[in-house]
C-alpha cells in the first residue's frame, strides 16, 4: 500500500520534473545555455570520432577486391545518407511538437534542422554520384534509393525555401511544420512507390548485391563514422539553434546582456 503511494508520489514527482523540464525547454536563455554547453563537449568529441573513423577507414582497411580503393567513399556516403533520412524525422517531429504544443523552441529546432539535413542529403547524393562513375560507369542512375534520396533533397529544400519566403517568422515556422508533416506522411509512400516502380521495370539490382558480404573490418569503422555523423548532425543542429535564438530574441534583455555584458539593463 505504502509502496503504491510512494510510486504514485514518485510519478507525480516525475511529472513535475518533466513539466519543469518542458517549461525550461520553452525558455530561450536556458536553451541557449544548455545548447552551448552540449556543443562545447560534443563538438571536440565529434571531430575526434570523425578523424579516427576516417583514418581507420581510409588508411587501415584493405582495399576491396572488386572495387579497389574507390569503395572507401562508403565512409562518407553511407553515414550521410543514414543521418539525412533520420534528420527528416527529427525535423518533422519538431514541427509536430511546435504545432501541437505551440512550443517555440521546437520551431527553432525544426528551422535549424532543415539546412543541415539538406546538406547531408546533398553530400550523400554527391558522394554517391562520385562513386557511381567508377563502379557503374555512370554518374546517375534512376534507381529506387537514389531517386527517393533526390526527392528527399527537394523536400528539405522546400522547407528551407518556404521558411525564407515568409517575413513573419512565427508564421513561417507553422507553415514549415505543416509542410514537414505532410512530407513525413509522404516519405514512406515515396520510398515504397519508387521501390516498387523500379522493381517493376528492372528487377535486377546492381547496387546492393555485395552488401551482406561486408567485412567486419570495414563494418566497425563504418559504424563509428555513422555515430560520428549523428553527433555532427546534433552539433550543427544545436549551433544553428543558438544562432536562430539570438536572431529571434535580439530585442530581449538577455541577448542584449549577452552581447554587451556591461551595457545598460
Amino acid at each position, binding site marked *: 500500500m505504502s509502496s503504491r503511494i510512494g510510486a504514485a508520489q514518485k510519478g507525480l514527482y516525475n511529472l513535475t520534473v518533466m513539466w519543469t523540464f518542458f517549461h525550461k525547454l520553452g525558455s530561450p536563455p536556458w536553451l541557449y545555455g544548455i545548447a552551448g554547453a552540449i556543443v562545447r563537449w560534443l563538438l571536440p568529441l565529434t571531430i575526434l570520432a570523425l578523424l579516427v573513423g576516417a583514418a581507420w577507414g581510409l588508411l587501415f582497411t584493405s582495399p576491396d577486391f572488386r572495387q579497389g580503393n574507390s569503395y572507401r567513399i562508403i565512409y562518407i556516403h553511407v553515414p550521410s545518407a543514414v543521418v539525412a533520412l533520420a534528420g527528416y524525422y527529427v525535423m518533422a517531429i519538431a514541427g509536430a511538437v511546435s504545432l501541437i504544443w505551440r512550443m517555440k523552441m521546437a520551431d527553432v529546432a525544426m528551422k535549424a534542422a532543415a539546412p543541415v539535413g539538406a546538406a547531408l542529403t546533398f553530400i550523400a547524393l554527391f558522394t554517391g554520384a562520385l562513386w557511381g562513375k567508377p563502379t557503374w560507369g555512370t554518374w546517375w542512375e534512376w534507381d529506387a534509393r537514389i531517386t527517393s534520396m533526390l526527392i528527399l533533397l527537394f523536400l528539405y529544400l522546400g522547407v528551407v525555401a518556404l521558411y525564407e519566403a515568409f517575413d*513573419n517568422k*512565427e*508564421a513561417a515556422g507553422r507553415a514549415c511544420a505543416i509542410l514537414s508533416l505532410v512530407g513525413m506522411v509522404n516519405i514512406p509512400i515515396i520510398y515504397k512507390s519508387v521501390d516498387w516502380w523500379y522493381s517493376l521495370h528492372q528487377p535486377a539490382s546492381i547496387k546492393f548485391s555485395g552488401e551482406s558480404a561486408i567485412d567486419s573490418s570495414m563494418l566497425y569503422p563504418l559504424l563509428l563514422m555513422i555515430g560520428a555523423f549523428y553527433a555532427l548532425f546534433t552539433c550543427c543542429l544545436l549551433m544553428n539553434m543558438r544562432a536562430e535564438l539570438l536572431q529571434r530574441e535580439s*530585442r530581449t534583455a538577455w541577448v542584449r546582456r549577452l552581447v554587451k555584458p556591461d551595457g545598460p539593463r
Partner: protein
Amino acid sequence: MTDSAVGESLAEVKDLGLARGGRVLFESLSFAIRAGELWQLEGGNGAGKTSLLRILAGLSRYGFDGLVSRAEVPLYVGHQAAVKGLFSARENLSWHVSGGCVFADEQIEQALQRVGLCGFEDTPSHALSAGQHRRVNLARLFLSEARLWLLDEPFTAIDAAGVSELQERIGGHVARGGAVVVTSHQPLHVDHTVHHLSLDGARIS
C-alpha cells in the same frame, strides 16, 4: 442622443500589446465592446487600427500579447472589397463566401437598392466604378445578422450621399442593440454616443 443600458459584452480584450517591425503600436490595452456601443478607432496612418481590428476579428491569431475573446462571429469589412470581378453584384452577395445562410432574392434586391446599385445588379463587378465596387461589399451591412460589426474605413471611395446613408445604417444597428467598431479618418455624424479609442498614444478616452 440615445444610449442603451450597458449590454452584454460582444468582444473583450485584456492587456493587449502589439509590436510590428520593431515599433510598439499599443500596449496593455483593455476594453470590452458591449451590445449597443459604437466605437471609433482613431490614429494616423500606421497607428495600428487595421491590426487591432484584425485581432478583434480573429484573423490575426499570434504575434501579439494579451487575451482576446469574442461572443460570436463578427461581420468584418476590410480594406479589400472581397468582391469578385467576374460575378455580378447579385451573384457576389448570394454566393458570398462568408454566407453559411443564403439570403432570399428580395433581400438582396433590397440591400442593393439601399446602397444605390439599382440598375447595376447584373453588371459584372469589374465593370463597376471604384465606389460601386465597394458598395457591393457594403450591401452586406443590410443583410448580415451578425451583432458585432468591425468596419475598416468603410467610407473609402464612397460619395457624400453614400457616406451619410451608411452612417445612418451604423447608427441604426447600434440603436437596435448591435455593436460597431469603425475606423475612419473622417468624423462620424451619428445620433449616438461614440466611444473614441485613439491609438496614437494608445489611451482610451
